[in-house]
């Protein structure tokens, strides 16, 4: 039986295509699920087999926490495909990693003891990181870990979408992403097959959005070594005899914070604070559900961005207009203490904060109900006129 040991190295996945969708827990689950299910139906249309599954370890899902959904397709029998790729927590690697909220490119920390992981962790050689974003691939790359092999970053223009969450109107991100996918990896799913299944599975009104996604996707090749050195380490979990009996783990000391689970990758926006207009009322400190505010000696409240989940509660309760404003997370480079920056140079900080807050506060560029970007609608209208 000596032969078997060499086989261990040969356990290579057969010709199976894996796609993952990185999504924000609860808010984007329906969206992720729709993308994966429609993909499998389209594969079936092309006489291939497939299945889809959510990463069960993400459960119970919490608002905004980065989660994953998967679709697997191949040209083999269902039994063979399930044998090769079924009963897994997640695929070993993926051909395409879809990101339906571009702020997740800063890293994803799905649960405690997992560490903050690069968004392109699972992208395989020659694969693609496909992001729904208003930014260019190179701008996104400023946050993405370097890999030692070539791959691609693609962008399908759009804003992080809540479509699928019942209280929000659908902006057709599902169809746009699938259109982009057909352009990037026609081997995974063809545009023709999608055109056949999208009307039934997602709605006839989404065909234009599908075509628009196909047309508007921007693809950029990324060379080995392009990207950043990943600043976070992945924790090593203890061996079975290395922790206390009775399921006892070390807890957070009084006044401390959990070093093993920082949670900031949950955030799409962060609160920017104008300390100069703050009236020291302490409402933000009191209201923050994650206890992110620390009182300072001069009566202000510093915010710890390592733990802020971006829920917006502090901005909501602050009684002074424009003193706490929620701002797109991708506008920031680090989680440093804003209070320290303010103390260092007040004027520079105020100018910086004002510039980050900008004029427009929340901006949805999509025209609800068409799935098309406003500019495109204008252009089309112009051509028609």
């Amino acid at each position, binding site marked *: *039986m000596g*032969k*078997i*040991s060499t*086989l*261990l190295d*040969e*356990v290579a996945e057969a010709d199976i295509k894996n796609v993952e969708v990185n999504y924000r827990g609860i808010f984007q689950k329906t969206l992720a699920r729709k993308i*994966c*299910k429609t993909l*499998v*139906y389209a594969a*079936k249309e092309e006489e291939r*087999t497939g*299945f*889809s*599954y*959510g990463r*069960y*370890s993400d*459960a*119970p899902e919490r608002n905004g926490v980065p989660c994953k959904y998967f679709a697997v397709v191949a040209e083999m029998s*269902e*039994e*063979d495909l*399930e*044998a*090769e790729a*079924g*009963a*897994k*927590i997640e695929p070993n690697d993926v051909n395409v990693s879809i990101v339906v909220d571009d702020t997740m490119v800063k890293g994803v920390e799905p649960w405690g003891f997992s560490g903050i992981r690069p968004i392109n962790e699972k992208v395989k050689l020659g694969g693609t990181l496909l992001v729904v974003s208003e930014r260019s691939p190179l701008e996104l790359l400023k946050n993405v870990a370097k890999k030692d092999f070539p791959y691609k970053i693609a962008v399908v223009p759009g804003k992080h979408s809540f479509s699928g969450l019942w209280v929000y109107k659908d902006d057709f991100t599902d169809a746009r992403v699938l259109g982009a996918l057909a352009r990037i990896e026609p081997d995974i799913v063809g545009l023709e097959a999608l055109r056949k299944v999208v009307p039934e599975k997602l709605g006839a009104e989404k065909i234009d959005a599908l075509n628009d996604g196909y047309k508007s996707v921007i693809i950029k090749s990324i060379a080995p070594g392009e990207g950043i050195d990943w600043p976070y380490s992945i924790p090593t*979990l*203890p*061996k*079975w*005899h290395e922790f206390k009996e009775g*399921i006892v783990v070390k807890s957070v000391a009084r006044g401390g914070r959990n070093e093993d689970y920082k949670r900031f990758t949950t955030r799409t926006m962060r609160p920017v604070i104008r300390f100069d207009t703050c009236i020291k009322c302490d409402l933000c400190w009191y209201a923050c559900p994650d206890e992110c505010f620390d009182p300072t000696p001069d009566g202000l409240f510093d915010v710890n961005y390592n733990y802020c989940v971006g829920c917006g509660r502090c901005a909501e309760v602050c009684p002074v207009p424009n003193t706490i404003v929620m701002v797109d997370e991708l506008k920031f480079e680090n989680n440093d203490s804003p209070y320290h920056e303010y103390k260092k140079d007040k004027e520079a900080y105020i100018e910086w904060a004002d510039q980050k807050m900008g004029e427009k506060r929340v901006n949805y560029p999509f025209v609800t109900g068409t799935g098309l970007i406003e500019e495109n609608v204008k252009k089309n209208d112009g051509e028609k006129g």
Partner: protein
Amino acid sequence: MTVVEGKLVESQKEELLTGCEAVAHAVMLADVDVISAYPIRPYTEVMDAVSKLIADGKFFAEYIIADGEHSQFEIVKHASAVGARVFVGSSGTGWMYAMEAIAVTASDRLPVVALVGNRALDDPGAFGVEHNDALTVRDLGWLLVWASTAQESLDTTLIAYRVAEDPKVMFPTALAMDGGFLTHSQHMVRIPSQSLVRKFLPAYNLGDRRLHPDNPISIAPQVNEDWVMEIRMQNAEATKRVPAVIDKAYREFEDVFGRELGNPWLEEYMMEDAELAIVGMGTLAMPAKAAVKRLRSRGTKVGLVRPKWFRPFPTELMQKVLSRVSAIGVVDRDFSYGSPYYGGVLFNEIRSTLYSSKNHPTIANFIAGLGGREISIADMIKMIQLTYEAEEEGKDGQVKWMGVRE
């Protein structure tokens, strides 16, 4: 087939469904009357799916949300006693919390059908698959079956009603499904038509055991030692009638729906001329098949045996199938602290089964995949290799934990 054209098309309808959604469809097709629910993952997925079918107006049933699992199982027990076809389910510690009601349901011979979404028994807080929860009813009179695919989950749910409600049986039946890997994974499932299901599944009829003012009976009075031995004996004898009913149900399923289900009791994969068999239940059959296929392509004579029905246990069949090989690796997704050899539950059942066989294969045991830990194809190949080694080194009864950080 004698079905009219329209119905034939309907009977071939295929949808991408999770294992739990597949079960929910079977519950709808079985025209269940009363469902009681209380959330605990992964069972929650089926509770959601059933309530959605009801909310969408596709399915009419009494859907009762209980205040906890104990009441949840009491509700269906009573509903079943008055003649309602019922569906219930739970997972992990939720199932344990309902144990008093679960135990008496079997003694009272009420054909409740339950889904057990296999889940680790917390503590610690964990949701992944472990088979210990469902296995706790193995001595109580519950029929216990493991599915490994979404299609099998739908099919087995229909079969479960048919078997449980057979007048010769009348035992509650639990369908166990691996939490996450099966309950939450979406696969193409063929959904049979209502008319074919009606053909396969007769109406639930308790006969003169039905609790009704016109039929004055009392169920389970206080009896003390005067009666208990006889009651237990009666139930024990009844379990012996189950295998023939299961066999018949599978054959008729194939006739009615025109689909092959294979052996009801266990799946044999590449077992012809096998020298070594790997044995395990549920979705671990998936990586096991891939491992077996790879090794077969290199000339290693290995196969997989996947038991489906654990209660009643197919003793003779298991003996027949497994005494053909010289080494067996039993993979338990459960633990049984302090048991013989400190091994798993399935391992000790199979060892006991093979004691009276002339050929005594070497039996190795692996405890793997607890709490939803993934069992990879490489892990499976490793287990096969270790089984060969156990045979060569004469280490019968060896138990190893796989995939543990050590």
